[in-house]
């Protein structure tokens, strides 16, 4: 307890700071069949799995950061370590000046967490009861609570024109959580995680399984809360739409380590110079793809060149989507060069 006062002084001004963070899991090497199962009862044959290795990063107050990576990359593990649930195997973490694992209870007071796949609300009770319980658990003052509820009302209460009754706050508050749709439940979970006005909110795949309208609603809500309350938002997702809509900064993790940590514009910029030109030569022809590096040749030149050989029926020009960029990075293309465009392609 005495040591934490030292930790409180955080020189860099960052709200979250990870230095050389590691996490290893020990799992039993299971053998096959009944015989193997029986042998395993006495086995000491463990395998060490590195879930997170040597992750270092600094996050400033009010930032919106997207944590991306394929399944099993170590995103959730990192979030669990930052929320104090998992103990790191090595390295340092400071969240709001606290070491989360040793000060789990204190740290919990300053953070909010949403897991898209499970609800933290009281299942059988109407949402308002969950809010009342949270108000007491986090010892929220009446004034702060009322202010937050007003803010929620102003974001969700006004009819946003989409005619959606089911995302209105009054409707949600009266509804028992178990009767909610997945979208309503996620929305409620996010409201619950911001209720005690935490400095940092972790959203672990918040839009998983939601329809387009609900996704938009949730993105809007998170953006508004971040803007008005200055809450730092850390988000993991597989939905590039979330990243495009919410994140200023993107961190890509794979195999436990950081592959990329910079702004989303720069990420797109890696491939920004490339365009995909798609051409049809007959009405019922398939699209033929040409990848063009605009630093070397222009789309118009290429088009003229193709047009000299064959009659062009239709054309389409596509920019590389964020998704493709990320796919490239996942697939280990660390030089960040484009090789295959799929289908028929042109080598520059």
């Amino acid at each position, binding site marked *: 307890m005495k040591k934490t006062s030292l930790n409180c002084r955080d020189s860099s001004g960052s709200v979250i700071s990870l230095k050389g963070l590691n996490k290893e*899991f020990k799992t039993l090497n299971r053998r096959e069949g009944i015989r193997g199962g029986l042998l395993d009862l006495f086995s000491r044959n463990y395998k060490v799995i590195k879930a997170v290795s040597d992750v270092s990063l600094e996050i400033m107050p009010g930032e919106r950061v997207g944590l991306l990576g394929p399944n099993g990359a170590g*995103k*959730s*593990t990192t979030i*669990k370590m930052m*929320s*104090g*649930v*998992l*103990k790191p195997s090595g390295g340092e973490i400071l969240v709001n000046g606290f070491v989360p694992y040793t000060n*789990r*209870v*204190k740290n*919990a*007071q300053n*953070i909010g*967490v949403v*897991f898209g*796949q*499970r*609800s*933290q609300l*009281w*299942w*059988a*009770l109407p949402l308002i*009861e969950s809010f*009342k*319980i949270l*108000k*007491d*658990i*986090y*010892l929220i003052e009446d004034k702060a609570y009322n202010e937050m509820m007003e803010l929620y009302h102003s974001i969700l209460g006004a009819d946003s024109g989409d005619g959606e009754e089911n995302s209105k706050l009054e409707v949600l508050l009266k509804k028992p959580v178990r009767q909610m749709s997945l979208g309503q439940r996620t929305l409620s979970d996010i409201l619950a995680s911001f209720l005690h006005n935490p400095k940092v909110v972790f959203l*672990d*795949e918040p839009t998983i399984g939601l329809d387009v309208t609900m996704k938009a609603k949730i993105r809007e809500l998170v953006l508004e809360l971040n803007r008005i309350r200055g809450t730092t938002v850390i988000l993991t997702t597989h939905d590039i739409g979330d990243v495009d809509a919410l994140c200023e900064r993107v961190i890509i993790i794979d195999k436990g380590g950081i592959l990329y940590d910079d702004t989303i514009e720069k990420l797109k910029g890696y491939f920004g110079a490339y365009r995909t030109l798609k051409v049809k030569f007959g009405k019922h022809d398939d699209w033929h793809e040409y990848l063009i590096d605009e630093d070397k040749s222009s789309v118009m030149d290429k088009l003229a060149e193709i047009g000299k050989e064959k009659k062009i029926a239709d054309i389409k020009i596509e920019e590389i989507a964020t998704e493709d960029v990320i796919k490239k990075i996942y697939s280990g293309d660390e030089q960040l060069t484009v090789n295959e465009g799929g289908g028929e392609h042109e080598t520059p």
Partner: protein
Amino acid sequence: MKLRSLCNLRKYFTLVRGGLLEALQWRASIFIQLIGNIIYLIIVYNLWQAIYASSPDETVNGMTFTDTMLYLVLAMTIFNMLSTWTVWMMSNEIRDGSIILTLIRPMEYRTYTFFNVLGGDAVTLFMLFLPTFVIVSLITNFAVPIGVNLLWFIPALIFARMISFYIDFFVGTVCLYTESTWGVDMAKEVLILLMSGAVIPLAFFPDWLRTIAEFLPFQAIYNIPLQILLGRAATLRELLTMLGVQLFWVAFLYIASGLFWRKSVKIITVNGG
């Protein structure tokens, strides 16, 4: 500091309230429990009637038939109250990873679970224990003395609740290692029911078994509160000794389950994600 910690009490009361509200949602389960109790009572009534019929005396081991029935009926309702599904709930939370949702709260896991459980207790107290107590008192023409014994019963019941909870919590913690506590939980349940005197009053035990039972924490859950409620503690000294034994087990199990949890929670691996 003192004022602050007093304010913090609302943290805990709200969990009791939440647990209570949730328990009330499952009205049907309370009624089914009531029916189950009636069936159990019919069996027990017939069983013990046969036992008493085969004895030449009115009293067996110092207890009349009415005494025994009274004891067993009340033991059953206390059992309804104290046998919460703590172990089952913990093992589920650990297995499916939802324990994380409690671990992100600004509160110790054990404290959180305890106060949540109390809410459910309150429901069984008012919907099962008190009605049963009143009915039994009326039927037996107030065989249960109405006096200070009722007042002493309150701390005895609270201690019993704590002992029972800490044992459950200890067993639930084992789940962090095994990921399944079904076997351990069943063994614990049988051991408690037998050694606590909830199914057979301790007076009917052979001497050697009773001696063992008296050195175990389980009898402090059912036997002691029931002895106190039924006015068996003749002197104040005897009564305080009983409460003292309970208090010892509360302290012992509080520390033991706390240490075990603290050591074990480090190995936690929240599944999924």
